[in-house]
């Protein structure tokens, strides 16, 4: 009986210890990434390459998700509010939801799937084929060479993608408003610009930058630790998409709360 309790306590202790080690390593990687950013050499061409791949390459899915969100939200809010005679509030409600929550959140979740899994798979495959060891053995740092360009590429690109998603969503809403509820585009756009303030745009932009950082740090961290061949790469990819998505959702709540309180 005592052995069982001791064993369970030991397991709890190990799990807790591993959790704190994991958190420490994640923050360690983040710290090293920032440190490497402000010391030479900085690989500007690799950063541009990653922005092209991770940011520019995500434009098409961003447009699709933005347009879909705008169309669906406007349709639902429109018919919902029509019951209470509130159709004219649709542009304000849709644009505010898009700017503060929906555009950054859905774009980030989609990018976590597309880019996060790609980064994890690429770095994971490099780990299992000893390419990461080769980078170290050749006197260079995997963090400087691989993590820094990917981290900044998404921290820069994701806010821009979210802004694009918002803009396309607003256009989608405008189309539905005109076709379904007879709201003219001029009135629609006037209400959008009158409702969404600078702080609402900033809330979405800052959230997206934080989500970009979360996606890349977790993808790179897990990728660098990948073992056990192709099976390990698969496990890493799944882990990164699930963990990054959950963290994006949880972090979204806290950032929203902070913005509502301080701004």
């Amino acid at each position, binding site marked *: 009986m005592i052995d069982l309790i001791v064993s369970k306590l030991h397991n709890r202790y190990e799990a807790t210890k591993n959790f704190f080690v994991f958190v420490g390593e994640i923050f360690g990687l983040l710290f090293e990434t920032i440190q490497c950013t402000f010391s030479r050499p900085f690989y500007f061409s690799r950063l541009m390459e990653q922005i092209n791949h991770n940011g520019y390459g995500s434009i098409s899915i961003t447009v699709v998700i933005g347009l879909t969100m705008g169309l669906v939200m406007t349709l639902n809010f429109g018919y919902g509010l029509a019951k209470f005679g509130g159709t004219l509030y649709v542009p304000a409600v849709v644009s505010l939801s898009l700017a503060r929550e929906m555009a950054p959140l859905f774009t980030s979740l989609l990018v976590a799937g597309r880019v996060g899994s790609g980064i994890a798979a690429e770095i994971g495959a*490099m780990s299992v084929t*000893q*390419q990461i*060891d*080769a980078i*170290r*053995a*050749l*006197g*260079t740092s995997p963090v400087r060479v691989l993590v820094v360009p990917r981290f900044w590429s998404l921290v820069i690109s994701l806010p821009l993608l979210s802004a694009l998603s918002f803009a396309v969503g607003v256009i989608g809403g405008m189309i539905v408003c005109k076709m379904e509820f007879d709201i003219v585009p001029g009135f629609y756009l006037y209400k959008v610009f009158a409702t969404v303030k600078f702080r609402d745009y900033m809330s979405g932009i800052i959230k997206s930058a934080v989500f970009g950082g979360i996606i890349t740090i977790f993808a790179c961290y897990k990728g660098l630790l990948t073992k056990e061949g192709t099976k390990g790469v698969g496990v890493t990819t799944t882990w990164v998409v699930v963990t990054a998505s959950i963290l994006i959702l949880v972090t979204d709540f806290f950032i929203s709360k902070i913005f509502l309180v301080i701004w």
Partner: protein
Amino acid sequence: MNEVLLELKNIHKSFGQHLIHSGVSLTLHRGESLGLLGGSGTGKSVLLRSIIGLERIDEGEILFKGERIDQLTENKLIPYRIKISYSFQSGALFDSINVFENIAYPLFEHTTFSYAQIKDKVAEMLKLIDLEGKEELMPSDLSGGMQKRVGMARAMILNPEIVLYDEPTAGLDPANTLNVVSLMQKLKKKGLASIFVTHDIPSAIMLCDRIVVLHEGKIIFNDTPYKFQNSEDPNVRKFISQQGLHI
């Protein structure tokens, strides 16, 4: 005797409960080729990886020209990783860039050479490894033997003082083995010190000045290839016979 370049003192290493090294000590002199032999899982590659800090030892000391390097941080190890290069068993080429970019990688990172100078140096190296004109090929377009040679060229491009070869002939057909061994002989003639981890006893005897045999975490033989072939040590005899050789 030549200057001691590398010294390993009483190295201990284990992974969890699994003991890998238990008091391994050896020295490598300038220009010397040392063959590191032993059965599978005896920690030959781990020893090479420990030398350049890819693995951390639990106990002991690793000295390069008298300076202790086993406790250095990743950043402080960089100058030593330029002087001690590592040729990976698989080649470990970067698969997203071509042969030229792979070989030139250390030059772009650690020198201020112009692009033209780097191009010349890579061409010179490709000539040495008999792969002239293959600059534009991707690693996936190369055979296993070619990949290993490109990996060796990349390890050699910064003119290191020591090269650590991790099973360079493993998995190669006789023709490719001969290519790799003759490349190693060319490099040896240039005065490079090396540690050559292998199961390929004939190549080790042909190339090395000294043979070291690892068994159960310890060095059980450390002498010339001639004495290795004539050793009466039962573990050495057993190892030789296990490799299918009857010397």
